[in-house]
């Protein structure tokens, strides 16, 4: 499902020198698998997810999603692949504040191959328990509800892979547990693989499959801290 090889990314530091942030020799995730990556703040795990999602262009290496080598694609094709195959759940949810709950989900779908399917968007929102909040705007929702909108938006396009970046970081323990269970459940229902990064042990222990991003990412060892 997801195969990463020799993936690297560096940024230009304040002194003009290039600072390596991600250097992952190899990483794989099978279809339908759910895996948690443990990583401290500043370890490069968000950048790693951005590289997988094609939001950032890698300096070198390969990212293959569902048999398609994303790193070999031009930007428009990467955008299309992201809309077709990936769902992304952000730590801060990144909902569009000027759009209703339903519109947030519809917009996420509209860039994918199936287009904005209103009935499906409603069904997904009902599945995450927001069927009665379709016309509400994000500011009118609780943090937990906003998180559920983000989950619905990420899954509405029936993605093959869901990337979740500290998805419970803004929630209290009770809501975090509920949100995590929901994400895992819905991914399972749809047969989507889940790659979640977090520094929260409470979250990480929920996963059978866990890896330490600090060990995976060789770039961290090169950066003086």
């Amino acid at each position: 499902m997801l195969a990463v090889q020799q993936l690297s990314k560096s940024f230009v530091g304040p002194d003009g020198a290039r600072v390596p942030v991600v250097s992952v020799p190899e990483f794989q995730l099978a279809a339908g698998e759910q895996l948690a990556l443990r990583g401290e703040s500043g370890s490069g795990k968000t950048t790693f997810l951005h590289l997988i999602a094609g939001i950032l262009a890698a300096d070198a290496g390969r990212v293959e999603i569902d048999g398609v080598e994303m790193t070999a694609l031009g930007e428009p094709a990467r955008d299309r692949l992201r809309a077709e195959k990936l769902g992304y759940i952000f730590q801060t949810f990144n909902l569009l504040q000027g759009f209703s709950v339903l519109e947030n989900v519809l917009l996420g779908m509209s860039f994918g191959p199936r287009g904005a399917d209103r009935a499906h968007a409603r069904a997904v929102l009902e599945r995450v328990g927001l069927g009665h909040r379709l016309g509400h705007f994000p500011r009118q929702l609780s943090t937990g509800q906003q998180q559920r909108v983000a989950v619905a938006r990420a899954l509405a396009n029936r993605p093959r892979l869901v990337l979740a970046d500290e998805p419970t970081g803004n929630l209290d323990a009770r809501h975090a547990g509920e949100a995590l269970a929901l994400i895992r459940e819905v991914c399972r229902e749809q047969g989507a693989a889940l790659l979640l990064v977090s520094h929260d042990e409470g979250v990480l222990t929920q996963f059978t499959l866990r890896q330490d991003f600090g060990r995976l990412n060789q770039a961290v060892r090169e950066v003086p801290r």
Partner: protein
Amino acid sequence: MTLPLIVYRSLRQHALSTLITAGGIALAAGLLMTVWRVKVESQAAFTQTSAGFDAVLGARGSKLQLVLNAIFHLEASPGNVAAADAEAIRRHPMVKAAIPIAVGDNLRGFRLVGTVPDLFTGVEYAPGRKYVLEAGGRLFAADQREAVAGSFAAQRLGLRVGSVFRPFHGLNFDPKAEHAEEFTVTGILAPTNTPADRVIWLPLRGIQTMAGHDPKAATDVSAVLLQLRTPTAGFMLDMLYNKQGNRLTFAFPVGAIMAELFGKISWFDRVLELVAYLVALVAAGSVLASIYNSMSARQRDLAILRALGARRRTVFGAVLAEATVIGALGAAAGLAAHFALYAGVAGLIRAQTGVVLTPWAFHQVLVLCPLAMTALCALGGIVPAVKAYRTPVAETIAPVS
């Protein structure tokens, strides 16, 4: 659905700045269209207004003053034409019709013009159109103190058949200069949409013999309105009166003399046009500034859209479409502003000159200007659209850990 939804929500989110910007565009478009139409249509209306006459014979002086006085009932008369001269032109073989007029009095600011009944029975003030009296009225008798009122003057002064009034001396209203003679209104003219609507017509003798007027000039007229048998007659009479003679002025052709006036004041049109163009440019600039300023607040939204799979060209198109929609909204409101402005200006011109401009008439500027304003606003949207196009997704949606 995507692009319209993004544009609609963005406009809603920035409703105040959208309204203000569209309002500026509306003002600019409205001004541009009004200046343009008033210029073109008033020029056409003035140069085509001849009251059915080819030429005017008057005292020696300016041809423009003569035409303004005799046809448009504006300006003072340049002087008098002796009865013998008026009779001579009437009998000239090249003259088809000669209608004398005499001016010099007013009724509360509306001109009293003395003339002969032939004006109303024998002259077409426009092709195929003769003066018509409203029901219940009749023409004045040439030897009575009677009057026929133009429709606009009658409406403004509240005159109706049977009304009695005393004229005031001079062309400008002076309450102390009231004449003793009383005139009775015998008819109201149906609207002609010409300067004649602003006039109260009296028998020629009525004006000439009014107490207080110079008795030595009791048979003189202010001008003679002429219909010629052939166009070449005008050139021959021009030679006779203007080049060989030196007592009278022969103004011919009426339209060309008015066109000369517009030629002389064309600099004013150009200034108005320039102001309107500048306002349009400022409005387009305000679209640029308004959207550009909101870009920093919206960059996160655009980055989120990109992270969801929107392509660069989609966000570029969304911002460009937003600028275009603001321009189109402004242009549409500009049409409404234009019709309101134009109706006001047309009313003013009608009140001052009697010349009627039709607010609802179609003119190509009503299509071209809104299209141009919309295109200009779309151009103004290019800079912020490029900024949207270049939005760095990863940096904008989340700090790199």
